[in-house]
């Protein structure tokens, strides 16, 4: 039957099919071009950039710009390249992702399986919290952080990311746990297992997929954050997004597009790698956060 259909595919249908592929490939080229241009530019020297075009290939593989971007380019005040800020980002992201994921798992567990009066209302309030524009909390948060001596510190930034990330992580876990069979929990309760025992022994071992989704989502969100970074960080606690923006907009000296592009690629590398190696979960996180949110 499929074979018969294939043979009977008429000429206009085949033309249509080729057209379809052509459009999809052109679109793929357009989506890939910026990344390709960034890579090419980062491998050229300043002279080649001036004489060539965006897509012209570099004469030789020249990694000078990468070295500069990593270790000696100026980002506003200092000239140590982007690597110290890459470390800052990791120092912020790792604890923030861990804490917000754990809190989200516990909250989701309670909301899905240990309902109490008001837990649904609380969930509603949390949901709206996913959508508020953060501009509306920036000023009070800045006051609070400086009151507790956390202004411009990594700990302060971690706290901010946990506070405003927990709404999403709770949502993810709640939506996952609500789909687990209720009998699982009620049977364990009859056997006398308590709140944490059930969580630890029954629920958590089932949670691997949603933990992966949540960790990837939070990692991407926090790594890519600029707003909290620029408002709440100090000179030596800046995340890499803020440092990159300073590097690109540092005005003294000639424009070094090759260094800019190398720095941008370094800043984008961690999330891009996550996407390449765990793309499936990345997409699942996006659509879970989106379609159900």
């Amino acid at each position, binding site marked *: 039957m499929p074979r018969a259909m294939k043979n009977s595919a008429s000429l206009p249908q085949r033309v249509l099919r080729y057209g379809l592929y052509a459009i999809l490939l052109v679109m793929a080229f357009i989506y890939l071009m910026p990344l390709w241009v*960034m890579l090419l530019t980062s491998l050229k020297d300043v002279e080649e950039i001036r004489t060539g075009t965006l897509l012209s290939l570099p004469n030789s593989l020249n990694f000078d710009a990468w070295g500069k971007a990593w270790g000696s380019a100026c980002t506003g005040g200092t000239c140590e390249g982007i690597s110290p800020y890459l470390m800052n980002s990791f120092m912020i992201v790792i604890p923030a992702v861990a804490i917000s994921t754990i809190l989200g798992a516990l909250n989701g567990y309670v909301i899905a399986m*240990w309902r109490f009066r008001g837990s649904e209302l609380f969930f509603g309030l949390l949901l709206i919290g996913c959508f508020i524009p953060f501009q509306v909390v920036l*000023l009070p948060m800045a006051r609070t952080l400086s009151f507790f001596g956390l202004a411009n510190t990594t700990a302060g930034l971690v706290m901010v990311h946990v506070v405003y990330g927990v709404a999403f992580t709770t949502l993810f876990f709640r939506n996952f746990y609500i789909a687990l069979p209720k009998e699982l929990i009620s049977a364990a309760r009859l056997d006398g297992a308590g709140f944490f025992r059930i969580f630890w022994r029954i629920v958590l071992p089932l949670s691997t997929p949603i933990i992966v989704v949540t960790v990837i989502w939070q990692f991407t969100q926090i790594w890519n954050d600029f707003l909290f970074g620029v408002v709440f960080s100090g000179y030596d606690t800046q995340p890499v997004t803020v440092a990159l923006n300073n590097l690109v907009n540092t005005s003294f000296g000639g424009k070094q597009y090759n260094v800019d592009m190398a720095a941008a690629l370094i800043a984008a590398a961690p999330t891009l790698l996550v996407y390449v190696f765990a793309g499936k979960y990345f997409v699942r996180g996006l659509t879970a956060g989106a379609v159900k949110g």
Partner: protein
Amino acid sequence: MQNQTPVLPNGKAQRIRSVSFKDRFASWLPKLVMTPTLLMVMVCMYGYIIWTALLSLTSSRMLPVWKFIGTGQYGKLFANDRWMVSLENLVVFGALFILTCLALGIVLAIFLDQKIRAEGALRTIYLYPMAISFIVTGTAWKWLLNPSLGLEKMFHSWGFENVQFDWLVDPDRVVFCLVIAAVWQSSGFVMAMFLAGLRGVDQDMIKAAQLDGASMPLIYRRVILPSLKPVFFSAFVILAHIAIKSFDLVAALTGGGPGYSSDLPANFMYTHAFTRAQMGLGAASAMVMLGGVLAILVPYLYSELRGKKNA
């Protein structure tokens, strides 16, 4: 023997008390676990919103001053040319960004849903920009849109000598640069949402329509697209939310310039609250942004909840 009789009820009573304490503790445990988050959300979201609302009614500049001046800051805000420009930009940017993303997302999803070879690879390519921050996106497109060395020069070298592409330094067109970069970053995500939606469409319905002799375009228009309405709404809300919050893209791509011609409300808020010591004005602009988000979100949530009750 006689000694033991009083022990029994006593022991029983003790056991009951200890069990009931344990029970009470157990019943409190879930609430206890939620308490940190509850406090965080009530204080750091809703409390701070009220705090910002109050600030917006004061004459605060560098530091909060609790001298209430009514709605003066809002009056000042809407008399401020820079704010009005940023609102205008948001309308243009938001409309073009949302419409282009939706159109591109639907078309790409439908095209990819035609049993395409290498669908997985193409999907990965369309979606990867979503993993990249708006700062990196802005940095990349700032270079691509460079008026002398970027795309313009590339078109010239291809023989299109008359192409002029200097939108990045044109105050009237710079907003379109924001749209281009933002669409590149977000449209793949819309595609993924629609593709997930298409895969969820009831295949029997499509087969029935085919048996009735309906053509494929007609089936898409009458059967498939209408059933994607929820995805459409979700995508709209998310894109609108991205548009209103857009701050980093402007910071990286245009810096708000030339002049302040590409500022968005989020950039206005940041500049006035944190670099220009106009706290009251910044707070007022944040409240207007919140109002904008709620105006989109409340009807959406309302229809979602009503839909669930009916279902």
